[in-house]
């Protein structure tokens, strides 16, 4: 019963995940839009609009999926800085048995968030 009540209160719609990018909307809507954006558009509803005050472009992707949020952030970083920052492959000391198990979970959680 309680589970049914909780479920019924959960919003039905998939939320938007939005970022603002230092870029001209024209560069993101035409044929020459970045490949990553085109790929996201194949699988998700996407809204691109000019940000107020000349503050770039708002890219909103309808998704509840952590992997897609990661791709949206990568797109923003690629557009603004020309590369996506990597942290895998850095020096690290010995991981404990717990650490070896926990590391992928913590990385996943910190990267994509708990939802």
């Amino acid at each position: 019963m309680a589970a049914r009540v909780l479920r019924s209160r959960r919003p039905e719609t998939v939320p938007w995940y939005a970022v603002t990018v230092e870029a001209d909307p024209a560069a993101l809507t035409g044929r020459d839009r970045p490949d990553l954006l085109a790929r996201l558009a194949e699988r998700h509803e996407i809204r691109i609009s000019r940000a107020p005050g000349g503050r770039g472009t708002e890219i909103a992707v309808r998704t509840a999926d952590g992997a897609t949020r990661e791709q949206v952030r990568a797109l923003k970083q690629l557009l603004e800085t020309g590369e996506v920052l990597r942290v895998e492959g850095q020096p690290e000391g010995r991981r404990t048995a717990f650490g070896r198990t926990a590391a992928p979970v913590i990385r996943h959680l910190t990267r994509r968030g708990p939802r």
Partner: protein
Amino acid sequence: MKALCWTGVNELTVEDVPEPHLLNRQDALVKVTASSVCGSDLHLLDGYVPAMLAGDVLGHEFVGEVVEVGPDVKERRVGERVAVCSILGCGRCRYCREGLWSLCDNTNPNPGVQEKLNGHSSAGIFGYSHAMGGFAGSHAEYVRVPYADVNAFPVPENVPDSNAVFASDAVPTGWMGADLGQVGPGDVVAVWGCGGVGQMAALASLRMGAERVIAIDRFPERLGMAAAIGAEPLDYERADVLDALKEMTGGRGPDVCIEAVGMESHGTGPQYVYDRAKQAVRLQSDRGLALRQAVQACRKGGTVSVLGVYVGMVDKFPMGALMNKGLTMRGAQQHGHRYIPMILDRMSRGEIDASHLLTHPMRLDDGPEGYELFKRKLDGCVRAVFRP
């Protein structure tokens, strides 16, 4: 190579770890020549910052020599001596362009936890947990520096490592505290905490024209250093801080209150006992004793500038005082890039000397001992600096 790793709560080990290599085209590799402990490391050490993993390399305040640059690095050159900002900026997002470097949108590849807890994520930081990017720290022989053109600053030849190392964090953080408080001629400034950052906030306030700076701590050697800078020391174990500040300011209270203590604030009286107990059982994440006092002490219409690190919730925050006294409260991780070139220039001209902070030069092998001295404030330790 050798590196100082966090291996558990209050546990550090020097380990052999693989050398770093370039991971992005705008990276540089820096051979570390001096790397300082920082008060904010203690929150990691004590287990209050989430998302640390045993084996993570610590350290974020450092200088060194560029030994390799990626193909898209345009400004930095192999062989240059550089001070590297502890906070990573990308230089291109709106925040970096506006000088709000610690709010960079692009340098924290792991923004998930912060987005959930704080609403938004801030910039990545060297050696400061996976929630702040998971970047390997500088207590090592070599460190990889992303976006090297904007994060590494050439050090003038006549500035020794013992001074330049603090241009990486302590001096710009302190400078930002005074800047956020808009300290100006005639102001009375109170600074909570006389560690490296607090002392540099006092120094910056005086350089910006403050008429009086009152420096609050309990350790005589730190109060003595603040006095040598030109501040008036106030020992909170010997005086009631709120009464003393009122008396010293003709009843008004300080114009600008700079909090350079953070989430593990010490103090006296029942409020301190209450804070410790609640933090110990995780009913609050941060102890806000100094912060509450700063809000309480600040003059009507004044500014409270928060430099001490907080990660979550502070209990019993005096919101009524903030609102009814019309205070402005500002805080940030350091927007270091805004100040570091000016600071290095002033160091070169002899106008800023932070080298007295370096009380304990040590080998990297002695890292665990260095943190023990620093944490327990033993042997007059203000900063231990490791030379790998």
